[in-house]
């Protein structure tokens, strides 16, 4: 009997998913990356080369690079504590295609301003150059400031636009004949009206792997319809199982099998030689991530008020946030409930809400927990979000071998393409998608 196989992916240290459903509007989770002595550059190619090298050594399915959001601002100025600035992801992945051989290479794409022809062309190029390892995360971030930098942004229905973007891109990718002859395409929908001939023959994967992230039904339904991977926030096993079952249940309506969409939980991991040491390390990371100043900033960004007179060791503000945004208000309510339930100060609340790692323990215990989590039907795999610069290396060196010992993770790449790593079918013109 074979154990269930996990899928593993990684994002760069300190990355936060810029998506409305990602629970990190305060942009936390990265202070330690740069305040630490071994701080890695966010822009130098060497950082990405090293990261990709580690992920490939660990036989990971893919590396995901996010698109940089507009520079965070705070009271009308650049928000100084938040790490910002980085490369354009698809360009970096093309370069990484030259220094890796098997690792999947995925980029976040903001569906609010992407144009199908240009996007399909860039992704098909990446798929060709990487011999079938391209993936893209369709994000619907709709930061209002993106509109200030782009001609055609600020669409009324960003989710509808995202779905149509996927559809149009696939029409382009399918347009050449199997013999390599370009055929005219035409796509006419609510958001795009395009026609002509696509510039590239069918790429090795046909369709680069589509990744979607999000929690709500609004995110799950489109994922069931057209995504190959769904990234979700980490949750305790019980609600995660219910969520997993719900996502898988939705697939049948689109003629898809449960294995056609992989659910991957976004996790942080803190290791130690003993359980106690791991706990201690986790607490230290939490305190380092969330300095008193950073804690105040985080709350200011949610509440939308100047809290410079506030004591970070005092309680959360008693007033309501000064925003009508539903998600921000819900987040504030969650933080308040958390503070009340556990009797936490403002800073402790921020640490608890955003700095708490998903898995803490010895490598053996973490490997066992990850394995059990998947065996129990809570996820198909994990997206590792390292908190420290060498977090991925540590995981690859200490946890991956133990997962392999449990026969829960591959010991070599079998296929060459990202689709073959993930075991997701599709990418052919005639599979009805």
């Amino acid at each position, binding site marked *: 009997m074979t154990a269930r196989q996990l899928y593993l992916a990684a994002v760069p240290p300190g990355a936060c998913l810029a998506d409305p459903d990602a629970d990190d509007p305060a942009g936390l989770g990265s202070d330690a990356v740069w305040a630490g002595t071994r701080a890695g550059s966010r822009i130098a190619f060497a950082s990405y080369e090293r990261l990709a090298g580690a992920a490939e050594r660990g036989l990971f399915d893919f590396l995901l690079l996010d698109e940089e959001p507009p520079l965070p601002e705070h009271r009308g100025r650049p928000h*100084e504590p938040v790490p910002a600035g980085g490369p354009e992801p698809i360009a970096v992945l093309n370069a990484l295609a030259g220094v890796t051989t098997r690792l999947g290479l995925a980029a976040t794409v903001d569906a609010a301003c992407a144009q199908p022809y240009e996007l399909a062309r860039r992704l098909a190029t990446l798929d060709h150059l990487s011999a079938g390892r391209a993936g893209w995360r369709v994000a619907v971030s709709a930061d209002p400031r993106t509109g*200030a930098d782009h001609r055609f942004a600020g669409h009324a229905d960003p989710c509808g636009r995202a779905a149509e973007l996927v559809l149009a891109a696939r029409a382009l990718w399918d347009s050449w004949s199997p013999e390599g002859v370009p055929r005219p395409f035409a796509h006419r929908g609510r958001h795009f009206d395009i026609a002509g001939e696509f510039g590239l023959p069918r790429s090795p994967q046909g369709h680069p792997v589509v990744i979607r992230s999000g929690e709500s039904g609004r995110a799950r339904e489109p994922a069931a319809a057209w995504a190959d991977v769904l990234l979700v926030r980490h949750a305790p096993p019980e609600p995660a199982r219910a969520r997993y079952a719900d996502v898988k249940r939705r697939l049948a309506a689109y003629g898809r099998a449960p294995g056609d969409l992989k659910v991957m939980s976004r996790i942080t991991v803190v290791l130690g030689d003993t359980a106690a040491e791991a706990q201690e390390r986790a607490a230290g990371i939490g305190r380092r991530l969330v300095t008193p100043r950073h804690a105040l900033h985080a709350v200011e960004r949610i509440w939308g008020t100047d809290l410079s007179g506030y004591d970070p060791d005092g309680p959360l503000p008693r007033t309501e946030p000064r925003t009508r945004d539903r998600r921000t208000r819900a987040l504030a309510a969650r933080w308040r409930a958390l503070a009340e339930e556990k009797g936490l100060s403002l800073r402790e609340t921020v640490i608890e809400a955003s700095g708490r790692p998903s898995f803490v323990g010895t490598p053996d215990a973490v490997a066992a927990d990850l394995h059990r989590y998947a065996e129990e039907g809570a996820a198909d795999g994990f997206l590792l979000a390292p908190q420290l610069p060498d977090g991925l290396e540590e995981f690859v060196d200490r946890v991956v071998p133990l997962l392999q010992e449990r026969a829960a993770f591959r010991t070599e790449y079998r296929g060459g393409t990202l689709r073959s790593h993930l075991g997701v079918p599709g990418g052919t013109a005639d599979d009805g998608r």
Partner: protein
Amino acid sequence: MRGLVHLAAALDLPGVFDGGAFAALARLAERGGLDFVTLDDSFARPGPDALGVLCRVAPATRRIGLVPTVTTTHTEPFRVQAAVATLDWVGRGRAGWRIDVSGTESEARLFGRRSAAPAGALWREAGEVADVAARLWDSWEDGAEIRDAATGRFLDGDRVHRVDFTGTGFSVRGPSTVPRPPQGHPVRVVDATDAHACTVAARHADVALVRAVSPAQAAGVRDRLREQARASGRDPDTLRVLVSLLVDLGDGEHAAEPGHGGGGPRPTVHGPLYRGGPVDLAELVTSWHAKGITDGFHFVPVEPRRDLERLVNGTVALLQHRGLFRTFYPGSTLREHLGLARPANRYAAPGASAVPPRAS
């Protein structure tokens, strides 16, 4: 006494979509010490995304400049500058950008957002994109990323700037999402054949590509470009003018056909064409360079795999032997190869440190 000649070559390989082939050609050009390679791009014909291909080539090469064509008509200006800046980071200061426009209705239909426009309007817009790109590259000062653990600041907010640019058809607020590239401004290249493009070249280009079949024609075009650059407030010595030549070195053993060698290339519908052997091409380069009528040449091989090899092992080797071309790269960035200074940042306070960041 004139300096060394500048040499560049096109890597265009129709029907090729695999990165290894482009990397092999770029390495060959690098072995010859060429200033840069270009890779053309257009939505109007099949081919991969040129900037993506040269990103793939970057880690496979160490010194040679990498200049993809990126068009400005249908791609967001903000995205264009971010991609070019990223190529400069990936290539550790070796990126260029050949600016071009998309003029056909069939290209416009691929995007479905605007109709085809006349060349004058498209090039005016391209000039604005070139302008805003340079502003966005400056929107992060060198060293804006301070990572000061003591004050908990990652950025120095005083050294990151909005650009608040309003052009004819677009506006950009900024700042960029990509920190200032290693070269400050990646090298902007414009084919100045079209009269509208010529204006953009004179104003914004670091390298202008021109067509000429005779030394007199080359000298005239260069003088006009330099005069236009001066008129737009630039020092004309910050503009390199390279003669772009189609080269067919297929008859390597034979002398150039009459009219191809020392006398100059022959006009064709695709532009001036030199057909002959690599030795005669070296003669042509030597004689035009001696007359002081061009800063160098951009060779577009008719058959890249064959011609580039002959170019490097024949023409370039001879020019090196004559002391007209470098035998190794003394610098590491494309600007250094071209003898162009790293530009000051328009937003930085005078006297602010202009030490380039380490790209590795």
